[in-house]
């Protein structure tokens, strides 16, 4: 059974999350402070942490940093709408995703599933992937859309690979820039935007009704396409 550590100082939220998560078959441990969160992450080895950023003792970002010191367990941040900078800081500190309060339970569960799936050990990235009409062969660096081979520039390909190998994960501007352009980058969001736009166009994805790449303004992008079995 999957164990989830819920960190929130509000008893009502803890109760609501415990009830909903238990109803979905998760084993739930709830704590109310940052210190307890770090201890809980170390001692009970949960498979997922749901972390509220506004804790009474430690800053949420600090909790992430401490936890990241010893485990790669998926962390989903729960935060209120206005703390945009906190969200980005939390993601850059190592959080996997964030959900804005108030949230719909189904959305939280979907994010939780995606995060835990990504974290599953012993699953090397498949050499070929399929997302509906889109096929990718990572070994041969080949991208096929509707049976037609796409001509992508090297940067576009690297960007697509970064997205496709992290399905469902919210990738920050900084993370994507470093991954695709290199360590010296991090603030050149205009480059990133230009390439995302070009990639969307080539992949036939409409930003107003996205099927592949979703924009999170001021934060980054998320690849939302579900991987379909390449064999089928």
């Amino acid at each position, binding site marked *: 059974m999957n164990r989830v550590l819920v960190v929130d100082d509000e008893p009502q939220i803890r109760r609501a999350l415990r009830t909903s998560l238990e109803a979905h078959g998760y084993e739930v441990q709830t704590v109310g402070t940052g210190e307890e969160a770090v201890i809980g992450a170390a001692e009970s080895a949960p498979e997922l942490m749901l972390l509220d950023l506004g804790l009474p003792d430690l800053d949420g970002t600090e909790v992430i940093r401490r936890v990241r010191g010893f485990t790669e367990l998926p962390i989903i941040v729960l935060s209120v*709408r206005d703390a945009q900078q906190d969200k980005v800081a939390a993601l850059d500190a190592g959080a996997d995703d964030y959900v804005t309060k*108030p949230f719909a339970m189904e959305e939280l569960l979907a994010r939780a599933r995606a995060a835990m799936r990504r974290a599953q050990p012993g699953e090397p990235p498949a050499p070929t992937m399929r997302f509906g009409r889109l096929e990718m062969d990572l070994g041969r660096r080949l991208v096929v859309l509707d049976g037609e081979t796409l001509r992508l520039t090297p940067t576009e390909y690297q960007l697509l690979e970064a997205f496709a190998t992290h399905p469902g994960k919210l990738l920050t501007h900084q993370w994507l820039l470093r991954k695709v352009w290199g360590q010296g980058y991090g603030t050149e969001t*205009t480059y990133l*935007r*230009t390439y995302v*736009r070009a990639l969307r166009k080539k992949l036939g994805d409409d*930003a107003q009704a996205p099927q592949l790449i979703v924009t*999170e*303004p001021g934060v980054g992008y998320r690849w939302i396409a579900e991987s379909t079995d390449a064999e089928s």
Partner: protein
Amino acid sequence: MVVSEEHEAEGAAKFTLRGTVIGLITPAIATAIAFPLAPARPEISIALFMLAVVIAAVAGGLGAGLIAGILASTIRPLVVEDPQLTFRFDDVEDVATGVVFLSVALIVGLLVGQASEDRARASRREREARFLGTLSSTLHTGEIPDRVLDEFAEVLLEPFALSKVEVEATLDGTELRAISGTDGEPSAGPRTTVPLLAGEASIGRLVAERPDGGRPFSRDDQLLLEAAARQATAALDRARLDARARIAQLDAETNQLRAAMFSSVTHDLRTPLASIKAGVTSLLDAAVHHDPEQERELLTTILEETDRLNRLVGNLLDLARIRAGALTPTRQQAAMDEIVEVVLARMRPRLVRHTVAADLPSDLPDVSVDPVQLDQVLTNLLENAGRHAPEGSEIRVSVQWIRDAVQVRIADQGPGIPMDEHERVFEAFYRGSSSPETPGSGLGLAISKAVVVAHGGRIWIESGPDGGCVVAFEIPGEEVAP
């Protein structure tokens, strides 16, 4: 405009330099003309000298006339009767002529002096009237009392050739004071004090000073200053009443706004809470059996109302932030079309009853904005459009780059907004007169405006080309190559 200038008292015989010269020259000319003619026609010489006296009196006033008269009566007998220029001043006829000359000089001189004084007085009265008229329009513009006093002190300086004006007045227990002209050490120049009278009571005073060595204040100056002071008092009184009326109006508006705010917020907060509580208690009631469809309906209501409450709370928080002056954008380089795209993607389910068209060029320069705040502006504007435009109509969103600014326009085909409300709709809690029942807290546009202004931009309403309304906003940016 100068109303106070020196002028001579031309009624009395005054021997100015100009008058003396004229009085000497005119008989001399007459002598020159009469000399060759005189022996043959003595009567012509009388006429000539008479003419000289009249001309002197007209041109130079009484003094000149008298000089010319004396001169003429002395010279004429010599010219006429003694070309050898021997004095022989005993003839009765000569004496009589002399008396006539002097009488003519006196009469003409006096008449001319009178006329010129009348003329001078008339033109001075005209200048004074014009001055008082200007003063009246300067002071009576519904300004606040302080401004009236300042204007008054300033406007007196030039016409009265003053170096300093000091005005003090007490209005409703408040002491007002205005000083114009050279400030500093008191000059040794002439000065005068005029009371500011409201009816019989003095409400203050005016102290006027001329520069060192300046002309003393004449009676005319004094009278005119008093007239000006009366006008200033009247203007002050009016301004005071205007200010009182304005404050009363402002109070009324603030109270009205506060009342509107409370009733609006109370209503808007309680309504979704009521729905939620009703739904939840119904679901919790063990005695009632709901079929799955009813259950789902109740739960959907609860969900929708929760979202509504969340939006309202967000708006109220923003309003509080605006009031506290804490609406500071966290700026970063962003593409406006991208922000619009995201909002459209999110809003689509709520705008299914409308056709949403977007005109988003992707080659616009980035702008430095707070994406979260801009997202909220767009959400509010689209929500408004969706609320007011009829089902099936088109909502068009366009983004363009106009003169170093990115401009976003949201056009709907709703009932539009009357011209005279184009400004007021941006006030918090204002609801359009044409649609008072439409739901909405009346906060969306106020918050949008605050956000746009915090970004150094502007937001406005236009009437659509075929009805409906366009809400447009502009955020300045620098053109940089992407």
